[in-house]
């Protein structure tokens, strides 16, 4: 057999404070033939990163490799010590971490860091290493390969940095490359570029690789074999096609089901009573940002520019966009945490004061906000009962047994047992915390819940359960959501209306059904096309038009030009870089901010 990597009976244990062992990885065995890519997939805590690190003979603090053997080529990794391990790492086995931003030293130039591995292991002279790095930059489709090495990490984008880290790993021609969630932190439109670059390099160099991810659709693009992990054990391991098309293990089937979200139906009676009472929330010409106010009250850093939207009672509005597009700022402005610079907000037919202090308690009660990360959104010093009890006594004046009864009801609503009432939220799992987080918003009995990336930090299966719960709450309580996400799949599965933000501008608003039908804003097209599909070969087939690079920046000072100009593949020179784009209503009722229809 020409297996490059052979792992048998690997056990990794963690020792806790009282000295008891906790097994993280239980008797895992697998092998990877030369030139193949094995994907390790599983939810957080399944041991996938621990296994990947064990391939380098490394165990994180407090953990140790208890038994089993790891062989890479002719090297028995588990028997190496000290200096021998140093010679293995970065030379035979290289590692690409999730966050490139954290893995690069901001004080040194990129080239210095990329060739560091080759220099440490003394396999190339500096000049040869730099030449090789430039060759790798080119292979990874990085812009300006000759000069990018002279820049510093903060001078390139996140996606570029991730590819630079791949160059760093590949400079020594390692036998095995470990990629640990390398695209998880990236926007979908960037992810696809990075994935393509990785795949190309891996194929061309016939590198053997381990790809760690929680995202089946991403894995489907790059892996030859997939190992599905749960609680430190391999549930199923086989060729990618077999796992994707005919999963045998029930857990794999659950994962597959969660990756293909069902549409959580809106209430059939959605439009029954809302027309009479008017919209719940109307925002008109909203501009907001941070920093000092310049003339006419414009903030120094404008985050949201002229955003308008309408939300009907009981409806769900999805807000989608990449990081930095102003999604979270929108939620904070509606909640009153940031005062807008311009524009009006109408809620329940009455104007909503920009500042929190000028809003009535009743208005505050009717709008609740739920944040992404339940770890930071729930006070670790408070018990569950306290967290849920506070809005009850503040808004509804409940106390004593009446309050406890209501807390139990709320816990029941979010499908948590009433017994967790006295527990600190630090003792709860991620999914449970997010349920408590939702329950706190429900305690106020709001009309509108602002959900800021509520499922983004959760594993697929848990996230699906939270989405189901939200859909159910909406049916039963007639509450509206503004659902903010970077994930178009979740937005599609829950929302009636979708609003696409790009660089603070609303570039499109449409209903769920029409989102990918008919003509759309070019950015929406890009966004929709970039979401990986759960089948092999998608990456090769998908056609993402590339924008021609823009010559000159003479228009930079012209106000309010299309924000997507530089990346737009459909740009009309002489129009788009001269005039601000108009709001256009298409045949199927979409509103888009684009010049397209002028043709």
């Amino acid at each position: 057999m020409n297996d490059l990597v052979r792992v048998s009976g690997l056990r990794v244990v963690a020792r806790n404070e009282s000295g008891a062992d906790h097994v993280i990885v239980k008797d895992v065995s697998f092998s990877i033939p030369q030139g193949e890519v094995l994907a390790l997939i599983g939810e957080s805590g399944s041991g996938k990163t621990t296994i990947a690190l064990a391939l380098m003979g490394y165990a994180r603090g407090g953990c140790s490799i208890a038994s089993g053997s790891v062989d890479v080529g002719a090297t028995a990794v588990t028997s190496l010590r000290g200096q021998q391990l140093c010679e293995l790492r970065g030379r035979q086995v290289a590692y690409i971490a999730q966050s490139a931003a954290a893995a690069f030293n901001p004080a040194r130039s990129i080239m210095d860091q990329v060739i560091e591995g080759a220099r440490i292991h003394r396999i190339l002279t500096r000049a040869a290493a730099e030449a090789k790095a430039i060759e790798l930059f080119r292979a990874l489709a990085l812009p300006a390969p000759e000069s990018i090495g002279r820049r510093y990490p903060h001078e390139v984008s996140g996606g570029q940095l991730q590819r630079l880290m791949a160059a760093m790993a590949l400079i020594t021609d390692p036998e095995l490359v470990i990629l640990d969630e390398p695209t998880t932190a990236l926007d979908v439109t960037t992810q696809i570029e990075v994935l393509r670059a990785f795949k190309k390099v891996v194929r061309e160099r016939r590198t053997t690789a381990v790809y760690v991810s929680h995202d089946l659709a991403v894995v489907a693009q790059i892996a030859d074999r997939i190992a599905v992990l749960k609680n430190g054990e391999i549930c199923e391991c086989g060729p990618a096609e077999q796992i994707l098309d005919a999963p045998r293990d029930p857990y794999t089937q659950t994962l597959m089901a969660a990756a293909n979200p069902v549409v959580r139906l809106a209430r059939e009676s959605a439009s029954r009573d809302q027309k009479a009472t008017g919209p719940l929330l109307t925002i008109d010409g909203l501009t907001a940002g941070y920093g000092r106010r310049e003339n006419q009250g414009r903030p120094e850093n404008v985050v949201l520019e002229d955003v308008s939207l309408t939300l009907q009672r009981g409806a769900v509005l999805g807000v989608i966009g990449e990081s930095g597009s102003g999604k979270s700022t929108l939620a904070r402005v509606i909640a009153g945490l940031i005062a807008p610079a311009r524009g009006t907000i109408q809620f329940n037919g009455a104007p909503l004061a920009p500042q929190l202090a000028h809003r009535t308690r009743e208005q505050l009660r009717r709008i609740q906000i739920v944040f992404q990360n339940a770890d930071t959104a729930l006070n670790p010093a408070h018990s569950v009962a306290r967290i849920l009890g506070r809005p009850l006594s503040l808004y509804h004046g409940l106390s004593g047994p009446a309050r406890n009864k209501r807390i139990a009801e709320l816990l029941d609503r979010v499908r948590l047992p009433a017994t967790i009432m006295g527990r600190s939220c630090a003792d709860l799992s991620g999914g449970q915390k997010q349920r408590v987080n939702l329950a706190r918003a429900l305690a106020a009995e709001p009309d509108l819940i602002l959900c800021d990336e509520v499922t983004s930090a959760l594993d697929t299966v848990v996230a699906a359960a939270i989405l189901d719960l939200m859909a159910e709450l909406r049916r039963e309580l007639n509450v509206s959501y503004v659902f903010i996400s970077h994930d178009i799949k979740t937005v599609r599965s829950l929302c009636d209306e979708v609003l696409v933000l790009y660089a603070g501008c609303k570039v499109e608003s449409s209903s769920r059904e029409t989102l990918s039908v008919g003509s759309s804003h070019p950015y929406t097209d890009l966004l929709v096309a970039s979401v990986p599909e759960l089948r092999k070969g998608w990456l090769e087939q998908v056609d993402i038009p590339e924008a021609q690079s823009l010559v000159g920046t003479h228009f930079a000072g012209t106000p309010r030009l299309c924000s997507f100009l530089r990346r737009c593949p459909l740009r009309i020179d002489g129009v788009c870089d001269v005039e601000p784009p108009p709001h256009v209503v298409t045949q199927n009722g979409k509103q888009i901010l684009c010049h397209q229809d002028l043709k």
Partner: protein
Amino acid sequence: MTTPVASPSADRAPAQEGIAHRAGFWRRWPRRLSLSGLVGVVLVAFWLLVAFVGPLFAPHGVGAIVADDSFAPMSGQFPLGSDYLGRDVLSRILYGARYTIGLALAAALLASTAGTALGLFATVSGRWIDESLSRLLDAVTCIPSKVFALVMVAGFGSSVPLLIFTAALSYLPGAYRIARSLAVNLNVMEYVEVARARGEGRVYIACYELLPNMIHPMLADFGLRFVFVVLLLSGLSFLGLGVQPPAADLGSLVRENISGLPDGSPAVMMPALAIATLTIGVNLVIDSLPGRARRLTRGALR
């Protein structure tokens, strides 16, 4: 409607890790105590006991001249020898510890409470109050505590309330700095934003959202302040500006018997040893605190 309900196993699996993480620092602490931590606890407990009930066990009165010669060595009659006037050193230490520990406790408590309160106030009060308060207290920081204490004693004369006030004022800015830096970090947490969006007032946010999460590091900081105050007061007493005779704290015991030093008299060694064991004990306790609290405090002090 076939809405799939959360699979309980998937939802609960990672919960276990969290339990050990924070589940009550007091419950977990003694079990994890290292040898040095244990030594610290024993020393601190001993000195606290001495401060409270020590004088009950004193064989002689605090000012009574009982020995025939000064600087007598240790003997059955005078376990720690006699001092320069022929008084019993053991009795003097048992009485003196009460001053040192009592004063230092009061001053450190005052400095830490006021510092925490001001730090919280500055954090929730917006930029202008925060800036002016911080700059004002920065100005206080740059006055050396010994010199400040000398000026205060020179100006108002030495008295117990003045000593407490002076020591508290010297160490307040440090406590404020740490409290404010902790509170500012907590203030941007999302649960504070949620509380603000809920319409909570500043007092609620300061007392219920911020304070509980900074109490442990502030306790560790309190321990350090206590040590500093002990050393400041002992130093002052050594200069003759602290607690005035016939009462004496540990520092003044060292000073009044300094002439016994060439002979290695226990009258000067023992009070010095008392100060050393007390401060080392508190330091050992602080070092045995769970990592986070200690790091925050130690880091911020430097």
